[in-house]
């Protein structure tokens, strides 16, 4: 077990390194950052000053060296746009994004796993068709449009929920639901497929042959067997959401998470801030995958032997 965790941590660290380096090189090589960051009529002197300030006058390798030495100290540089330490700017936004993604995931799991289970009980019949249609639609609707429609309906016409910003629970509902629908749709669909597959497994037939009823079979046996694929998918969903898909929802609802910050940073061409954001996002992705892997190993002891 320890070996496994260590291996995964090393792997994760390598990924983080790769991500950071990619952003580093992308922002410096694909274009001239100074060109991008200064307004059009800027004088050469301004540009030179900016170059100096950003440390871009040095060679690429020494920049890399500076970057890493700063990194080790947890210093991601100062955001050009906000003139504040990049990491702390991102840090302020993290809780908000986590709150959103957490709420969305919760709704997706709690609301949609049962849907998948119910759909799997009688595949091909009415309930299944209705649930599958619903999930498929949920997966197909663009989140930004869904959010806009929800705002139109629940915020403007009905006035139940605010349309933007964050504050109390009321602000969380619409954005969380918007995020949850596509995630939940996928989770329900994979729950359904896995359950259907499990229902026809021999051991379920054997359980029936021992006189067990459906409810008991599901609760005591099936759920555990179904958990691994669902957990894997849920972790992917969480990771993808954290890695950026929350951006769209955050933009629609003006939710102050680090996704929204990323958009602003791009608009402002603030590469320092961008580096920090991507680093944090990658950290979450790696963490989500690691947690899911560990959970799977706990649930399914066969993976230890593999």
């Amino acid at each position, binding site marked *: 077990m320890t070996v496994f965790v260590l291996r995964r941590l090393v792997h994760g660290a390598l990924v983080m390194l790769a991500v950071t380096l990619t952003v580093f090189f992308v922002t410096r090589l694909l274009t001239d950052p100074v060109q991008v960051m200064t307004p059009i009529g800027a004088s050469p002197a301004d540009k030179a000053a900016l170059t100096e300030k950003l440390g871009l006058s040095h060679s690429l390798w020494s920049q890399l060296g500076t970057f890493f030495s700063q990194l080790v100290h947890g210093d991601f540089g100062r955001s050009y746009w906000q003139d504040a330490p990049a990491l702390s700017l991102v840090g302020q936004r993290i809780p908000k994004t986590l709150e959103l993604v957490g709420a969305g995931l919760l709704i997706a799991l709690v609301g949609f796993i049962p849907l998948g289970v119910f759909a799997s009980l009688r595949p091909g019949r009415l309930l299944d068709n209705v649930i599958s249609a619903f999930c498929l639609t949920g997966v197909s609707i663009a*989140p930004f449009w869904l959010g806009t429609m929800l705002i139109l309906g629940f915020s403007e016409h009905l006035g139940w929920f605010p349309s933007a910003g964050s504050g109390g629970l009321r602000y969380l509902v619409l954005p969380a639901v918007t995020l949850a629908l596509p995630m939940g749709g996928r989770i329900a669909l994979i729950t359904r497929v896995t359950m259907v597959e499990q229902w026809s497994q*021999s051991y379920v037939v054997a359980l029936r042959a021992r006189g067990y009823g459906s409810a008991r079979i599901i609760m005591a046996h099936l759920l555990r067997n179904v958990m691994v694929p669902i957990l894997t998918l849920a972790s992917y969903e969480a990771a993808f959401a954290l890695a950026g898909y929350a951006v769209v929802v955050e933009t629609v609802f003006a939710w102050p998470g680090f996704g929204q910050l990323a958009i602003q940073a*791009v608009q402002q061409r603030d590469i320092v801030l*961008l580096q920090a954001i991507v680093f944090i996002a990658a950290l979450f992705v*790696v963490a989500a995958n690691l947690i899911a892997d560990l959970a799977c190993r706990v649930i399914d002891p066969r993976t230890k032997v593999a």
Partner: protein
Amino acid sequence: MSLTAADGLTSGIGLDGDPLARVRRGRRRLPSSTRILGYLSIAYLVLVCVAAVFASSIAPHSPINGVLPDRLLSPGWLHGKYLLGTDSLGRDILSRIIYGARTTLIIGFSVVVLSGLFGTVAGLVAGYRGGWVDQVIMRVADAQLAFPGLLLTIIVIGVEGPSTPVLIVVIAVYGWMVYARLVRALVLRLREEQFVRAAEMSGSKTPFILRKHLLPNLLPALMTQALLELARVILVEASLSYLGLGVQPPHASWGLMVSENQGYVSQAWWTVVCPGVALALTVLATNLVARVVAGGAVNPAASQWAIEPSGQATAERVDESSSITTPGPVLSVRDLTVSFAGAADDLVHAVQGVSFDIRPGEVLGVVGESGSGKSVSMASVLGILPDGARVGARSLEWRGKRISFEDLHRMRGRDISIIFQNPMSTLDPLMPVGRQIAEVLRKSKKMGRAAARARAIELLDLVGIPDPEQRYRQFPFEFSGGMAQRVAIALAVAPEPALLVADEPTTALDVTVQAQVLSLLKEVQQRLDIAIIFITHDLGVVRGIAHRCLVMYAGRVVEEGPTQSLFEAAQHPYTAALIAATPDVNDRRDELAPIPGDPAVAGAPTLSCAFAPRCSYSTEVCRQDLPILQIAAASATEPGRIRRVACWHEDSIVEAGAHR
């Protein structure tokens, strides 16, 4: 939607694989509702594509130049100039939607083709060559999957500027991994297929194998994946355009249209709703088509046996007051019939008019080849049926009392137990075996936790598992085949049933292990005085364990009687032929005597002797009329050794009889 039993029957239930875990090859028919939706979706997508290609001819107005005084006009379906209204710059929404379709589809198809080609090649190479090439490709793919994709895309676009080629390349860079992993997984699986191995071993070269064997089997899955990816890419492009990082104004893109008009949504809902609906419908249609293309693969193959808990028995409920409980057979079945829908929507009669008794403490062997219906008949009595199967019987009696199929099903796990062929797949893989036994005990005998645990350990010891306390906590995968079957036996005898049905319990085991498990079964049977119905195709096995035997062919019993009489002087030509065809270790003959032709496959109900085409004694009457199972004349005079035969020529065999 279920697997048709015909596949199971023709492919040899119990002979070449676990009947409970057969995976269907080939496609299954989709329910009509899905198919209709699929066709509708294809039609819609074709429409969108056509509109996109011929946008300049179809769009009523310019998508870019708006007529400002006409801004924010509501949709004029009936008489107005603008079918779907205008946006804030006076541009016709319908035209913009049509041009938006073009942009979206161009980007979508380009990305799918680009990432698909690259990913497929990468997956093929990784899967087929293996080794370090595989490692490298997969590491890169895995690492890339862990990247915060959308963010990086945003950054690159933000830095490079949002032009269409940039968009396409960046999105494609984030799509290839999916194909690579899929293709690699498929290739790895296909490589293990016997026919690929056979091709390799008979000298076929790699490009040939890739072309003729791998690709045709890959294409369906690739198509499905490509469609799913197309749906995803359309959404990504729309999201990017929404965020201002995709298609730029004044061009049209559905995502862009939503963001442009978001501020006007309360006054002019159509400016946002129409492009959104177009987007949603297109993505939905693509997803639906993907499902249809995947076909049976989306709904995984159902097992050979599913269970209808409510039972679909059509046995008549007989007036129960007329029954008298007499000491006699534990279970008495008369005229059992089982039929289900076949592959061609015809009715397959798997079991036709089977009758048998089983007495307390007796072992009844049920012998037959594939298609005989031996497993189906016994399974159906207990309600383990393929979906949609129909079971009927003239009468069912339990210990002399008339009962229904439902009653019999309720006795499962209490008075009747079952052991299956493959123990590994009939135990819950994620629960310790001891707990599974304890669970049965608590349910059937209402034991408390501690008592159940203790008894479970006792049972594990009874079936010869060393270190039962330790093994209690272990999972099925930690047991060998023979040990797992012992656990299955413990599970089956835990509720102390009166009847045990054993369906080919030793077929999947090694010879030496088989002998041990058989002797265990005999011991357990004698000790607990359980009646056993022992289904097998192996004459040698049934000889050593069964008191009486039923020989089945094409869904009917052709001979029945004490095992010894059956072997020493078979009355039915099939029984005799089967015995003659069975090789024996102690046999010094050189030639085996095969039975010509193939075993009969269950199909339409037989109205004459099903064995006649292969029988050396058959005459005209055999092909015309069905012989009834009745007491064999030769045995009528031997008390205690009554036999029944279904043959027009039973007397002929008496003379020629195989003496073994």
